[in-house]
């Protein structure tokens, strides 16, 4: 498998390539005062019907990127195109209301003085009253809120409010739907259900969407492609599977799931580490200092009386047991075992590593 260079843009989801491009960011930067995170040289495209997730820790610039697409933040370099039209460039800004975007806010921002149906109808002023009512009815049906059309926002539950916000954005048939942490105000159970509903709705309406989240599970569940951001820079843009299994930087590796980093040295064409040998997939020269990234699901443990490693801790996660293994050097690694495999803490264990799933990083440039 080829290794990934940092910032490499991948379009390996081949089915997207012959769909028209809806949204394009070219080398976009936004710089302001100290209170708002800046973004530097962000480039990506979203094809028709595609769901792109902007994933990263708070302050990484993901919301700034979203707001730049919406036209709430001016760009200081680069350009943004929507449906082929230039909408943002330094000193040149098409107002939000002329961009054909839909937006769903973290706190939904339903207009509290308007009923559900009037909230949904808000963006349809240009239509006749009859046409407007029809579209609102169809949309409310689609999100399953027909019975609540005459309610006020404060009379709805969190999940219902979110569906109203979605309906209000989708009824305008936006070129691209922007969602800012849409599930963070819901309890985990509800968030899971809403995730499925939203995914289904976006697919049915063939809506292009950009979704901001800090939760990698959410990104994995929703996205066709994930853009991982850190410190205002795009670290990787790839399918969820590629982001998880072949992260391009240690940051991405660590952010999208549990990962251990084991130092090693290239000797005789293989990577020598404390826990064994790994193939030198990236072709580093002999003597190079590298680190090996390993996911807990690629490490299997077997109790072995004379082993050098032993169990330090066990966390029960329901569907799995996550073991922390102490190595002689004092370093620890993690192993994910089936939920029924229970070993007591202190048990000496042997590690069996699935070597095809490891990723190498250069120790000098990355750590």
């Amino acid at each position: 498998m080829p290794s990934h260079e940092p910032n490499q843009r991948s379009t390996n989801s081949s089915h997207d390539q012959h769909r028209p491009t809806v949204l394009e960011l070219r080398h976009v930067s936004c710089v302001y005062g100290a209170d708002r995170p800046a973004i530097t040289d962000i480039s990506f495209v979203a094809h028709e019907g595609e769901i792109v997730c902007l994933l990263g820790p708070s302050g990484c610039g993901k919301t700034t990127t979203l707001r730049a697409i919406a036209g709430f933040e001016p760009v200081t370099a680069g350009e943004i195109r929507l449906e082929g039209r230039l909408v943002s460039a330094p000193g040149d800004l098409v107002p939000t209301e002329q961009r054909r975007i839909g937006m769903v806010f973290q706190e939904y921002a339903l207009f509290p003085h308007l009923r559900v149906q009037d909230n949904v109808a808000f963006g349809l002023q240009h239509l006749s009253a009859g046409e407007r009512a029809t579209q609102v009815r169809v949309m409310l049906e689609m999100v399953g809120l027909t019975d609540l059309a005459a309610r006020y926002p404060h009379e709805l539950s969190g999940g219902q409010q979110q569906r109203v916000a979605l309906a209000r954005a989708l009824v305008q048939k936006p070129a691209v739907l922007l969602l800012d942490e849409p599930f963070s105000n819901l309890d985990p159970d509800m968030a899971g259900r809403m995730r499925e509903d939203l995914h289904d709705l976006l697919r049915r309406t063939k809506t292009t969407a950009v979704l901001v989240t800090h939760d990698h599970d959410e990104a994995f569940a929703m996205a066709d492609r994930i853009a991982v951001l850190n410190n205002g820079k795009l670290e990787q843009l790839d399918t969820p599977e590629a982001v998880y299994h072949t992260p391009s930087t240690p940051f991405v590796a660590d952010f999208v799931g549990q990962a251990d980093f084991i130092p090693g040295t290239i000797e005789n064409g293989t990577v020598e580490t404390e826990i064994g040998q790994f193939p030198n997939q990236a072709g580093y020269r002999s003597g190079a200092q590298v680190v090996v990234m390993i996911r807990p699901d690629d490490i299997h443990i077997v109790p072995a009386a004379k082993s050098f490693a032993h169990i330090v801790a066990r966390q029960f996660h329901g569907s799995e047991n996550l073991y922390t293994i102490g190595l002689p050097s004092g370093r620890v690694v993690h192993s994910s075992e089936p939920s029924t495999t229970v070993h007591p803490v202190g048990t000496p264990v042997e590690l069996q590593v699935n070597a095809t799933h490891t990723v190498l990083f250069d120790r000098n440039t990355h750590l």
Partner: protein
Amino acid sequence: MNHTATVKPALPNSLSLVAVTVVGLLCLPLAYVTHMALTADAAIWSRLWTTRIPELLFNTTALALGVAAGTLLLGVSLAWLVSRREFPGRRIWEWALVLPLAIPTYVLAYIYSHLLGAGGPVESAWQMLAGPDGHLPSPHSYAGVTLVMTLDTFPFVYLLTRAAFLNLNVSYEEVARACGASRTGTLFRIMLPLMRPAIVAGLSLVVLYVVSDFGAVSLLRYQTLTYAVYQQITGRYDPTAASILSLLLVVVALIFLVAERWFRQQSRFFQTTGRYRAPARRPCSPLGTALATIYTIGVFAASFGIPALLLIQWSLSAIASGAVDVRFFGFVWNSAFLSSLAATVAVLIGLPLAYLASRRPSRLNLLCLQAAYAGYVLPGPVGALALLAIVSHLAPFWYGTAAVLVIAYVVHFLPAGLQSMEPALQQVTPNLEEASRSLGFGTAATLRHVTLPLVRDGFIAAWVLMFLQSMKELPATLLLRPVGFDTLAVRVWLEASEEYYQLAAPSALLIVIMTIPAILLLLSKDWRAA
């Protein structure tokens, strides 16, 4: 002190008794006026209905509506300007625009009566343009009073609307824009509807202020109910007719209050939710900057700048001519003595009321608190009338003493004080007091070591507020003061009535100067510089 196992305070009943007594006294004037009016001879009622009442009701309502419209326009536009646009000097104007609150209506009225009067500076300037026969409408007219009251009260609307603009969730605006609404569309379809409760609250303050104002209408000779009550007492000494007009005035004020309450109930769902993000202020173009600056400076100059400069100029020449003498300092002492006495009494009376209502909200205690707000609907001359009648009936030997004046102040201004004291007490959660009790402190010790230190600021603010309002009070002071016992406010009014503008200036200036820091102090509590 109570160190035994029982946690029940030892003094609830005596405290409730005090509260009920106090509230009874506070409500007595209102009850007395109502009684006098309702037992009046039917002939007096019909005489008033056919002669004075239609005109007075019309004038009062017209003035209230005119000023409401004016303050709505000024207050909302200025609030929008300082909270949504950025232009040089915006920070200064943002707080400078509340300064007109420091000028009592009678001071602004007398200054405008000079400025716009026949032969005044504005008319002179106009005659240079329009020739010697050019005349402007007199300030002694509906237009003149409306202008003065608008300039004096627009900060109420400005302040509440500005706070609403700053607290409004920015996401509403952004989502409206994302739905294709323009900036103007967003303002009128989303922001103003959401801010309606704040704007209405500001307007209702303005209307209550206008309806009960005596200073401006008396100096500009505009016949409203308040002014007529005063004239009935002083000019004709007809307390019965005065009480009928008073009752009418109370009813008008009540209608506004109830309407405002009702509206607030209706729009309870107008709560803004979600995280707070400061709204972005859009920079103005050069032309926009010029327009914004001219507009703000114009309003500020008309409502505060020019009046303040005139007062300073007149005061200086009055001092030069020796008008600031021993008598003047006597007036200062009278004002300060009466006002601090009234404020202290009001805080002591308000404490048990606010405490009981927030700590033991039984129906009786809440009723007491509500009843204490009766003074709100009791405009100055009406309260004075009631006290005059009660004192001359029950305790004639008290008539013409400073004590009656202090009672009048307390009845009138306690509601304003309570509004500052009650939230202060509510901030102290009962848990804090219970924690103190669990640590072995008794009721009294808890009050002294926990509750009082926590509510101190709110109570100081209440004291300052009531002190200043007593200091500025005019109609009740005019009617109830002991012979020869003039306050600063009375001096301003007396000199201004005789058009001795310069002689009135030092007293007026002193009132304004004392009020400014207090206004800034009260504002700083909830002033969010976003």
